[in-house]
């Protein structure tokens, strides 16, 4: 795949959350606000780019039979380092994301792309795939987070958009609302895709 095509693949055609349906756990868990979604998206992107690069660089040195344990050690190391860096440098967002940062290790997007792409392609292409998938992931999270924050709290990124006493639907900030909002979002994206494909 060309570099440009690889890049946009992760954002639209094979968006990890809205098309591949990977990484559901953090998607549902941290999108109670747009800012949290952005933080998680960027952290996961950093891990994805790093692990894709490392795995692609060593793909010829890793024996096939032990590739999964090797991938996991590499991914977990990146996540732990990012976790420590965030705890030291970005304490507020680190506290808000909490347990979901270590959970990036088992985010299927990361292992999925390592296995499906980084293990079979060059370093540059793998990095671009990581960036593209990361942007797709972050975009989906920010969109979902904004929707949930707007309906459930009347604000987006902390800026109040609805008047102070407007009735908000609190459940959208909680897990059941996450399922509802995500379901409608995926349905909407599918509808747009069919319409675009039909033209």
């Amino acid at each position, binding site marked *: 795949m060309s570099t440009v095509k690889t890049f946009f693949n992760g954002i639209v055609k094979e968006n990890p959350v809205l098309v591949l349906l990977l990484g559901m756990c953090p998607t549902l868990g941290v999108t109670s606000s747009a800012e949290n979604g952005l933080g998680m998206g960027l952290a996961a992107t950093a891990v994805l780019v790093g692990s894709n690069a490392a795995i692609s660089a060593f793909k010829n040195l890793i024996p096939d039979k032990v*590739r999964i344990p090797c991938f996991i050690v*590499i991914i977990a190391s990146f996540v*732990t380092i990012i976790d*420590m860096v965030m*705890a030291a440098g970005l*304490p507020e967002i680190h506290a808000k994301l909490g347990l979901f940062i270590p959970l990036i290790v088992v985010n299927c997007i990361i292992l999925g792309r390592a296995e499906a792409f980084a293990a079979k392609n060059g370093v540059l292409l793998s990095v671009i795939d990581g960036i593209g998938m990361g942007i797709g992931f972050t975009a989906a999270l920010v969109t979902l987070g904004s929707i949930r924050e707007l309906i459930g709290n009347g604000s987006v990124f902390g800026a109040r958009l609805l008047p102070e006493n407007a009735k908000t639907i*609190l459940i959208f900030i909680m897990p059941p609302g996450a399922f509802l909002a995500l379901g409608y979002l995926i349905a909407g994206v599918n509808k747009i895709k069919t319409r675009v494909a039909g033209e």
Partner: protein
Amino acid sequence: MRKKIPSTFINMCAVLTGISLSASFLLGLAYTKTQDAIERVKNEKIITAVREVLPEFDNDPLAEKYTNAAWPLFEFYPAKKNGQPAGTAVRSYSPDGFSGNIWIIAGFLPDGTIFNVKLTEHGETPGLGSKSGEMPFIGQFINKHPGHFILKVKKDGGSVDAVTAATISSRAFCDALSRAYSALNK
């Protein structure tokens, strides 16, 4: 063939060991570089909360922090001004929150009066139980003495006005606060 290295026993062991050793080294490196900042952030958070719940002081309550074996996990931060005790901040919790533990920091003057309270960690419902950390609920504790101001919600025979539709969170908050008072005075 995707991989140039065949999956022989020696190769597999060598690569796994090599990757694990490199990872351990890098993680150790990252740890040493970040631990100081992480410790500093943690202490910043505590001292900011202590400053909010106590009157002016000129010592370092963090350095003089103590604990009480009878109250595991509680932390006590004594404050002094000009050598005289100015109050103590108590970090306590209650397990009876609507959604897990509720942690507070409560500042008590030397005579036991509540100077201020701050809700620090909780899992309560946003907009409902979380209001126990905001005015006006929290305002009713300021300058009250637990000797006269019974730290229970009115429904339970106490003096505290619960947050509307958040009785459980309010009860848990009172519980954390009264535990802090008991821990300090017993």
